[in-house]
């Protein structure tokens, strides 16, 4: 009853092809955006911004990037952490070595560097598939770990190996407080999500999906596998590189290569799979789930009044996290986005039985 598209006629091609063809979706998304930009900065606490919203938004951006590669183009990658690291360290080097560069330019260039490396490591995908490719992308991960730890030029010869981002400012406005950081990240993520949504429903997105479903068949109907796969690697790495730069500059401030190790790659893959493969919305849902879950698990013993040592809590946390992942995969292998779709389907009739 609430979610009913009866009576919404599309009389032009433009209205048929618009981003959200159903009025309820449009209202909901606009409402959400107004709430996120207008109300949240006044309502949120510092803890909410720093521990939940900013990590959620940045990781959601990285998850969108990974989803383009894994969910839309079907190329499993375990090297996400490496591309984030490349974004982060390119941004750092640009900020340190090139004076007075605009922050947005830095982020875009960081994405470009990640794209170049991503395409390079995407070349094997033309020959190898599936798990072979997944393991091959681990090469990127371990190579990047080593490169940023050992080659001193990348860390500007810092003695401890950790580097710090300069103070952030955009067009003369400082980005210092949690609220400013939140708004900055939110704006970037919104733009990128829009770009991703439009790319994936356009010609290039259809080429990716055809390659994912069956690459030989896609080639037969005239899709160039090389162009499709490498463009997926390029777009995905660009997103992930920008997310990496944001993660380093806004979230961490100062960091070392360990911040982008193989666990980050797995974490992002979890987000994509739990959120839903091949869904932009799913990337957001998955990121929210993976960001919030450890926080809840961490607090749970305190809420239940069980005094446990910190080490014990962290072990139990890992254990419950693993078990939940398995549980979740069993209950809904298609992810949270699928649950959302089922919910919407139910809302068409609810509260009436027919």
């Amino acid at each position: 009853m609430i979610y009913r598209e009866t009576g919404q006629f599309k009389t032009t091609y433009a209205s048929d092809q618009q981003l959200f063809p159903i009025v309820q979706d449009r209202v909901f998304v606009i409402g959400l955006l107004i709430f996120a930009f207008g109300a949240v900065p006044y309502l949120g606490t510092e803890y909410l911004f720093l521990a939940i919203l900013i990590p959620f938004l940045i990781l959601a951006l990285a998850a969108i990037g990974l989803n383009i590669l894994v969910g839309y183009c079907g190329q499993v990658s375990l090297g996400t952490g490496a591309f984030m690291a490349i974004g982060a360290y390119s941004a750092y080097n640009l900020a340190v070595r090139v004076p007075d560069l605009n922050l947005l330019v830095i982020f875009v260039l960081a994405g470009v560097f990640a794209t170049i490396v991503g395409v390079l490591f995407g070349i094997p995908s033309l020959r190898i598939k599936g798990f072979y490719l997944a393991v091959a992308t681990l090469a990127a991960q371990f190579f990047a770990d080593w490169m940023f730890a050992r080659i001193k030029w990348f860390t500007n010869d810092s003695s401890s190996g950790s580097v710090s981002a300069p103070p952030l400012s955009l067009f003369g406005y400082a980005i210092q407080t949690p609220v400013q950081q939140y708004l900055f990240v939110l704006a970037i993520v919104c733009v990128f999500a829009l770009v991703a949504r439009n790319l994936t429903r356009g010609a290039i997105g259809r080429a990716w999906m055809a390659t994912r479903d069956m690459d030989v068949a896609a080639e037969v109907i005239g899709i160039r596998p090389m162009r499709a796969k490498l463009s997926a690697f390029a777009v995905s790495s660009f997103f992930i590189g920008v997310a990496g730069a944001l993660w380093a500059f806004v979230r961490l401030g100062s960091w070392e290569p360990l911040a982008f190790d193989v666990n980050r790659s797995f974490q992002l893959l979890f987000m994509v799979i739990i959120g839903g493969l091949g869904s932009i919305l799913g990337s957001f849902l998955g990121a929210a789930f993976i960001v919030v879950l450890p926080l809840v698990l961490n607090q749970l013993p305190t809420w239940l009044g069980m005094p446990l040592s910190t080490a014990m809590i962290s072990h139990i946390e890992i254990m419950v996290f693993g078990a939940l992942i398995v549980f979740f995969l069993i209950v809904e292998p298609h992810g949270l986005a699928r649950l959302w779709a089922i919910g919407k389907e139910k809302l068409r009739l609810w509260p009436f039985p027919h």
Partner: protein
Amino acid sequence: MNALAERNLTIAFFVLLAAGAVSPVVLGEARLSQWLEVIIGGLMSGVLYSLVALGLVLIFKASGVFNFAQGAMVLFAALSLVRLMEKMPFVAALALTIVIMVVLAWLIERLVLRPLVNQEGIVLFMATLGIAYFLDGFGQTVWGSDIYTLNVGMPKEPKILLENTFEGGILVSTEDLIAALLAGLMVAALTLFFQKTGTGRALRAVADDHQAAQSIGIPLNRIWVIVWSVSGLVALVAGIIWGSKLGVQFSLQLVALKALPVVILGGFTSVPGAIIGGLIIGLGEKVSEVYLGPLLGGGIENWFAYVLALIFLLFRPEGLFGERHIDRV
């Protein structure tokens, strides 16, 4: 790329590798005895990578699951053994650990694999990642997270071989020799099990074709329990050897990550591939670390194996002995 070009490139790859491996001696960069020590050390660690890779290959062959939890299983088995040994004699602890690994295999089949049957490979892979996290947390919650020394009575003192041929001889640790011997025995036993017993034959049938195996009455679920138990036992052996070398600690897990380039180099579906791949990776890694590492700033051990495997896959996408895959529309 046709088959001939692929073969030539493969040969060229190995010739290059071999040339790279002997070049330190030929160029006079290293003493022969020291070089031999590096080679032997590399082969020894290669054997141990093979052991972990073996567990991966067994499960992949029988159920098509890429089991990321193998490393966690190694850690879990070693932890169980070492903590049980504090309370009882070695043989009893070993028996109990074997029981634990079999129960674990049964639980995994019951609780994870059976509900996820017919799902895509990536979903199953993520599930094993979940299992890996779970085992990590569970093992350390139950058994504690300190570093434990595992002493199963292997002699520690190094042996000096060929003292007459070289000045100073070659230093080889006895422990490594025994480990290599154990690994060899393990492989032989597995081969016998696969080739000569009824269960082994059933396992091979399942590996070939799930549906065909099921249609002639092979119970898939039981086969999966068996295969996970077997790789649990392989994990236990790997855990004992690695554990007595490095101590039982969290970093044992990372050994599993080294087993990944081994399986893709050797081919996901081949037991001999896991062995030979392990030896190549172990060797290449040690030689490159000792002779090439100083030029690049050290620590290249961590990625060398992956890059080696990646280059190899470029012209031989199914690995050394993997099944050639033909795509049909």
